[in-house]
């Protein structure tokens, strides 16, 4: 039994140092797969594709071209878009914008599913897309847009820095606070 959603949101932090000796059990990978399969997509275009990378040699090859990955994750998910499907099934808006929103929602599902099961994570955008595409054997139309590293943290997270809530959230109109 995992954490409830709000508790997972409150406790999740990006992790950059993993216990390299600990692999993820199959049940975690299955849960992640279930999470992405339940993720919504605009116009129901379902143009996203996800590669779950768990084989240590393949993790190393991806990491070689992903300068934003820190530590030794036990697994990672490459969140990709099928650009041809995005255009054909979702139109120009999906091809240009909505596909990123869809991947963002799926990313949140992955992060929170992992956190709820005691697995730490870190989203990574700093990588060479073409190189990672080739390493993962992705067809030309399917491009990686985000990586999420996964594993068991071996260090406490960094101190959190957040803007005050009034700079992030307004009520009814921009700049109006709740009370």
């Amino acid at each position: 039994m995992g954490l409830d959603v709000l508790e997972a949101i409150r406790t999740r932090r990006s992790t950059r140092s993993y216990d390299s000796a600990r692999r993820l059990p199959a049940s975690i990978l299955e849960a992640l797969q279930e999470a992405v399969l339940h993720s919504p997509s605009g116009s129901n275009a379902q143009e996203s594709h996800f590669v779950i990378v768990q084989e240590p040699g393949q993790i190393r090859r991806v990491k070689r071209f992903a300068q934003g990955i820190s530590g030794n994750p036990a697994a990672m998910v490459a969140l990709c878009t099928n650009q041809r499907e995005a255009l054909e099934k979702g139109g120009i808006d999906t091809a240009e914008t909505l596909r990123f929103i869809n991947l963002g929602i799926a990313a949140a599902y992955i992060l929170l599913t992992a956190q709820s099961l005691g697995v730490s994570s870190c989203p990574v955008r700093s990588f060479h897309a073409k190189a990672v595409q080739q390493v993962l054997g992705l067809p030309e139309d399917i491009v990686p847009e985000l990586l999420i590293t996964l594993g068991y943290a071996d260090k406490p997270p960094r101190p959190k820095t957040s803007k005050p809530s009034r700079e992030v959230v307004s009520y009814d109109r921009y700049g109006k606070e709740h009370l």
Partner: protein
Amino acid sequence: MIVTEKNISEEELHNRILDFAAYVLTAARGLYKEPQSYGPMRLADALEKAVQLLEDAGVRDDSIEGALAVIREHRWQATSNPEAFAEALDEAIRQLVQVTLEDARKQELANESKRA
């Protein structure tokens, strides 16, 4: 500098060199689009990786350990607090200046004893 036994196989050393070269090139390419503060962070990480690679290949030099310790302590601030990281870089550089000056003094003494 201390030259010791390699503690990894030839194959692993080959892989580590590839890891390092790919990291430096990919990081360099990424910096064209990344925030300015990522530059110092990537360079510090490259230094850390280079030192580790040398050590695994059997080359260790403790004279830079003090400077590396300062960088490691403040690494997490590289993007969130660039000024604090810049100060850490200044401190690490100051320590390397001390090492440089001590080396120069030793060299001078060695030269004097040769002349004597």
